């Protein structure tokens, strides 16, 4: 479950995934390229947790640059239990080793893993938690997130890590960051029909159970249709791949990271180092991202995706005119096995459910196996709602 485990006497324990930089242990981002890499600096969010009394109890593996389904492309190997793929950081919380997991949500694996584990996770509003000290992949949408056993655990840790950070150029003001933690009540929830249709019966049952629990708590839930939000996936895949392509261009086998032994000149050093170190999903994502940024495709594909991002946010805001949050699945099924990963690119289709919150930067809370996406800065209210509706995610 761990790439490294620490002993800590701290009352509250945090586990960090391998996208979160730490100075005293390896941060490999799940890639052979960074196997053995030790950072010179520590993640701002982790520093804040440590200052608040949390003790780091371990580092957990992630899939290569966290773009895969559930960590199956990790250089440390897939983490499975009883044949099911599991998110190691979620399992560290579930087994009680850690109270909180500090993770980077890039392409939804955090939310899929949380849904499967029956835990609670919060992907805060973009810009409210510093990304300083994380491995950059898709900077315009990735968010430092938390996984916990209860909504209260998540909210307590979130109150510690949220806030302005001068070192992160996308960090919002303290005032905005703290407003996201305000208590609030969610009164009306929209159930996105277009999103639930493709999910299996088990996921649909989770949605139905959550809707019933909402109603028992006096919260109205109405099914609505939408034709735009469901298109987030295509746009997010373009933006994520383009940003990833640029971000991983820094890995060339010279200043740090893996270096091939098979070269006779500089070009071969670069090419063979990258070719030997990167897995197929990452290589293909790089090539796709590069293609979207080519002269031929830039306006037609990349620029279009940037405009669709605004259309999707406007679609959400229109819904938020009537509702306080949107309910949708976090994944299409509750158990993934290694057989599912025979399709190496499954994460590019399974992110149908996670792309809407990633591309818009809206907060998302996963609990009871389902996902609530709220207005910007409403994560406090989402967590309060989940706290009332489902204790310990069940």
């Amino acid at each position: 479950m761990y790439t490294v485990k620490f002993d800590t006497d701290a009352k509250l324990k945090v586990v960090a995934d391998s996208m979160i930089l730490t100075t005293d242990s390896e941060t490999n981002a799940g890639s052979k390229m960074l196997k053995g890499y030790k950072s010179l600096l520590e993640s701002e969010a982790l520093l804040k947790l440590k200052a608040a009394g949390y003790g780091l109890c371990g580092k957990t593996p992630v899939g290569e640059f966290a773009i895969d389904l559930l960590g199956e492309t990790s250089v440390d190997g897939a983490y499975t239990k009883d044949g099911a793929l599991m998110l190691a950081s979620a399992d560290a919380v579930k087994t009680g080793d850690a109270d909180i997991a500090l993770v980077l949500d890039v392409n939804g694996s955090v939310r899929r893993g949380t849904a499967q584990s029956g835990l609670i996770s919060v992907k805060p509003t973009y810009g409210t938690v510093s990304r300083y000290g994380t491995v950059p992949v898709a900077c315009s949408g990735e968010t430092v997130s938390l996984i916990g056993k209860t909504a209260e655990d998540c909210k307590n840790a979130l109150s510690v890590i949220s806030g302005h950070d001068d070192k992160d150029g996308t960090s919002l003001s303290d005032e905005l960051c703290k407003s996201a933690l305000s208590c609030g009540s969610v009164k009306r929830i929209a159930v996105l029909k277009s999103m639930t249709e493709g999910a299996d019966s088990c996921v649909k049952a989770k949605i139905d159970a959550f809707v019933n629990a909402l109603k028992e708590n006096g919260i109205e839930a109405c099914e609505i249709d939408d034709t735009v939000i469901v298109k987030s996936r295509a746009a997010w895949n373009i933006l994520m791949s383009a940003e990833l392509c640029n971000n991983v261009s820094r890995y060339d086998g010279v200043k740090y990271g893996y270096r091939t032994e098979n070269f006779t000149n500089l070009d071969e050093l670069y090419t063979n180092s990258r070719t030997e170190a990167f897995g197929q999903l990452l290589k293909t994502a790089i090539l796709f991202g590069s293609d979207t940024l080519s002269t031929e495709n830039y306006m037609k594909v990349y620029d279009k995706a940037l405009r669709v991002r605004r259309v999707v946010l406007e679609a959400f805001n229109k819904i938020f005119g009537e509702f306080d949050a949107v309910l949708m699945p976090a994944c299409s099924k509750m158990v993934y096995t290694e057989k599912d990963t025979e399709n190496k690119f499954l994460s590019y289709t399974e992110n149908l459910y996670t792309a809407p919150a990633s591309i818009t930067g809206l907060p998302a809370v996963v609990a009871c196996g389902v996902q609530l996406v709220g207005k910007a800065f409403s994560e406090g209210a989402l967590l309060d709602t989940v706290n009332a509706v489902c204790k310990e995610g069940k």
Partner: protein
Amino acid sequence: MDRETLRLLELLNQLKLTEDEKKETFSFFEDRKADSCGLEAIDTSEVERMVHVMPIMTVVREDKVSQPFSREDLQSGAPETDEGYWCVPRVVE
């Protein structure tokens, strides 16, 4: 996507795919192309690009001279160094 375009993308990104990887990459590109067709149906002619999801201005920090890490620290993860320099193969014959 044709073989020549893929060859150029590999060259540009300093990657080499095996024949099996190429086959799977072609299939991946086809799937993404099918996905993107849905985007074409959305009229964005009057919509502005959205680079940042939040109203973030370019941040310019005060220009302060500092030395947070030593040269030794910065080179501690390098595959090969020599007297404080990063080593690469000879580029000038």
